[in-house]
């Protein structure tokens, strides 16, 4: 290639992103990434959203990615810009969200000198990315960025980072097109183990007490995985539950739906998991929030596990039939073979199983005592659900009790509609995520169900919402407490409420007004519906301060170290409900 064909590293970055079909970048500029921002300024194809903190850029990119199925892109500068992105990268790694972070770095000849705003970004982010690269040669820049997208989006998705020193951005080099790179670095999906699959199918046909337990992997696998899952449920009439990450794969209104499982899952879901004799785990990973006490987890079941990541197999729970591969492919083969064999299930036993399940449903484990004088948080979420479910709606959450209530009381009919920080449990996720979602879906109703403490962690993003006129609805269940922490202290630490209250809270309505947006406060259950409608109807961003009961606990709950069939259903707090062994668990 002649000198004339060369372009600068900064131009290469933008060109590569356009080549990858990127239309939106979330970011924050600084010295080490200025050449790239300069290029950004001189083009029209990529829209840049200026956040107010780099952590928010990563969560916004996550919200964007998870609500669209596309890859989220972030620009940050070196040093503090890069270190601020670490929480979002870790969050994306835990929840398998594909994002690409491009970070500026000090020039190559200054690396290692403790230069101004130098940090070992590749070193710091190595354990919190799927892979990362430091690009020292402008000629390799395009190729590396294309690889980064490939790695982020294939197999089990996840975050990647490309660190680009400033001199590499300024220098000229050759551009490599997206389709010109070799893909030999991509791990091939293993072929499906058909013997294992047939064995699993024959167990499925005989199962007396089956359950399907699905997770976020189904959403990541895409629409056809979701459709196959729904066909499987319809064809077998098996009950289905899901992890926090998988909500929406099977519609909440579907007749086989048992609700979410796990620590704050429904009684029927957890009891079915415990008592089943056949478990089909699809795109979930037996996380400790799901299993409870490992050695008492579903003791009598034959377990089939579909997962694209071999390291998820037998990590926490030893399974009988691991099936490694893309969920959509395995499910379609499974369905085809099962149909070939006559679409059999053990109908007689199955109807007896449904009888037990319906008895468990009768317990109404999500029940709570409502009040006419104070807004119960569950009631607030229920009303929010009722008044918004008919909308084209996306929901994000922060982390805490409000998150669990949202998971329990909101119904999701479709995947990619529910964005929450599951694996890392990152307070401060929801607000920036809602911004990313709204950017991707400008005309949809985007609601962040928040706790006041979490929301404050990234409240600076009000500026972003205002600047881009994003009508995000921040629905804060304000209990003036770090509610989930308070609940644990009540149940585990002798009601010693060490630093779990939210002191010196702002006046949220005035805060909204200070930013020129709408603030609504509601403390009267009778006003709730009207106020929620007002929030929905308002065309701009709304900060909704919903003052709720301060001491409500989130039930049902499987205390740490307990089994699924030892869950606490309500306020009848049992003596010593959590053992010393359990107390060390988080």
């Amino acid at each position: 290639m002649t000198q004339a064909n060369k372009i600068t590293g900064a131009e290469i970055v933008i060109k590569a992103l356009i080549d990858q079909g990127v239309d939106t970048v979330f970011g924050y500029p600084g010295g080490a990434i200025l050449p790239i921002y300069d290029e950004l300024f001189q083009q029209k194809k990529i829209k840049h959203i200026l956040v107010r903190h780099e952590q928010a850029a990563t969560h916004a990119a996550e919200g964007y990615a998870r609500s669209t199925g596309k890859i989220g892109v972030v620009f940050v500068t070196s040093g503090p810009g890069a270190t601020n992105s670490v929480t979002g990268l870790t969050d994306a790694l835990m929840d398998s969200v594909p994002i690409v972070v491009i970070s500026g770095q000090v020039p190559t000849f200054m690396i290692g000198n403790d230069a101004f705003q130098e940090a070992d970004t590749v070193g710091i982010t190595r354990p919190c990315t799927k892979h990362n690269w430091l690009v020292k040669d402008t000629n390799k820049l395009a190729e590396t960025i294309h690889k980064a997208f490939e790695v982020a989006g294939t197999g089990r998705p996840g975050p990647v980072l490309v660190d680009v020193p400033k001199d590499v951005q300024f220098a000229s080099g050759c551009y490599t097109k997206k389709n010109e790179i070799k893909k030999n670095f991509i791990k091939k999906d293993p072929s499906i183990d058909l013997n294992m699959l047939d064995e699993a199918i024959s167990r499925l046909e005989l199962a007396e007490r089956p359950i399907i337990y699905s997770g976020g992997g189904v959403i990541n696998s895409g629409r056809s995985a979701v459709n196959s899952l729904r066909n499987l449920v319809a064809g077998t009439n098996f009950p289905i539950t899901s992890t926090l990450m998988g909500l929406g794969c099977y519609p909440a209104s579907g007749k086989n739906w048992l609700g979410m499982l796990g620590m704050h899952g429904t009684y029927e879901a957890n009891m079915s998991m415990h008592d089943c004799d056949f478990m089909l785990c699809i795109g979930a990973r037996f996380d400790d929030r799901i299993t409870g006490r490992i050695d008492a987890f579903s003791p009598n079941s034959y377990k089939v596990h579909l997962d694209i990541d071999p390291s998820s197999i037998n990590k926490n729970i030893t399974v009988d039939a691991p099936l490694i591969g893309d969920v959509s492919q395995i499910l379609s083969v499974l369905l085809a073979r099962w149909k070939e064999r006559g679409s059999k299930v053990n109908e007689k036993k199955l109807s007896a199983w449904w009888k037990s399940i319906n008895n468990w449903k009768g317990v109404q484990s999500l029940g709570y005592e409502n009040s006419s004088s104070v807004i119960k948080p569950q009631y607030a979420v229920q009303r929010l659900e009722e008044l918004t479910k008919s909308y084209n709606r996306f929901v994000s959450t922060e982390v805490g009790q409000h998150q669990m209530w949202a998971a329990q009381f909101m119904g999701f009919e479709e995947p990619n509609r529910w964005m929450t920080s599951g694996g890392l449990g990152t307070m401060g996720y929801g607000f920036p995520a809602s911004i990313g979602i709204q950017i991707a879906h400008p005309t949809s109703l985007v609601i962040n169900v928040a706790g006041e403490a979490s929301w404050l962690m990234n409240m600076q993003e009000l500026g972003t919402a205002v600047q881009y006129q994003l009508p995000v609805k921040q629905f804060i269940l304000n209990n003036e407490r770090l509610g989930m922490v308070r609940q644990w202290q009540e149940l585990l630490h002798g009601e010693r409420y060490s630093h779990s209250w939210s002191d010196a809270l702002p006046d949220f309505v005035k805060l909204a007004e200070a930013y020129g947006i709408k603030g609504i406060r509601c403390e009267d259950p009778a006003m709730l519906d009207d106020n929620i409608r007002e929030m929905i109807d308002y065309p701009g961003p709304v900060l909704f301060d919903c003052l709720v009961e301060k001491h409500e606990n989130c039930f049902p709950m499987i205390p740490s170290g307990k089994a699924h069939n030892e869950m606490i259903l309500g306020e009848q707090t049992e003596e010593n409900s959590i053992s010393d062994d359990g107390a060390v668990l988080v």
Partner: protein
Amino acid sequence: MSLKLKKGVNKQSAYNLRDPNLDYEAAHTLSIIVDNESGVLARVIGLFSGRGYNIDSLTVAEVDPDGQRSRITIVTTGTPKVINQIKAQLNRMVPVHEVIDLTIKGKAVQRELAIFKVVANGNQRVESLRLADVFRAKVVDSTLKSFTFELTGTSDKIDAFAELMAPLGLKEMARTGIVALLRGDNSS
């Protein structure tokens, strides 16, 4: 056909029916083919430290300059479940091309190289030289007061030699850690 008993203590049985091998820790030698790119060793080591796996021995060098591939040989200890996790986690890494568990795959040749400095006079000096001969250690440097021996062999052999040299004036030693390949005509 095996009895349809569930693994683990359960209602039906007072005995622990867990697979006894599940908790049995054993050393495994893993041969890992990686891209020879900067940071690859840090990634592999970071995986072990981050997830709490053991490293008993580690060696690394480029073995295919054309393909820019290196071979990392790691000896690690763990239960079968942990060893499987280690292999699966390694296989997830982008620059890792192959993970071969030499302990499972068949017989492997395992060797270490060590250098010993022995400072001694008189009989001790003669004895160290005699023992070195028995072990087929080579003298690679000497002064009037010292010998430097080079020894290649299994880790056991090197341990044994070190033990013998200790009372004979062993001052310091350096060893490479294990390198290994499968026996036979199959490449691993």
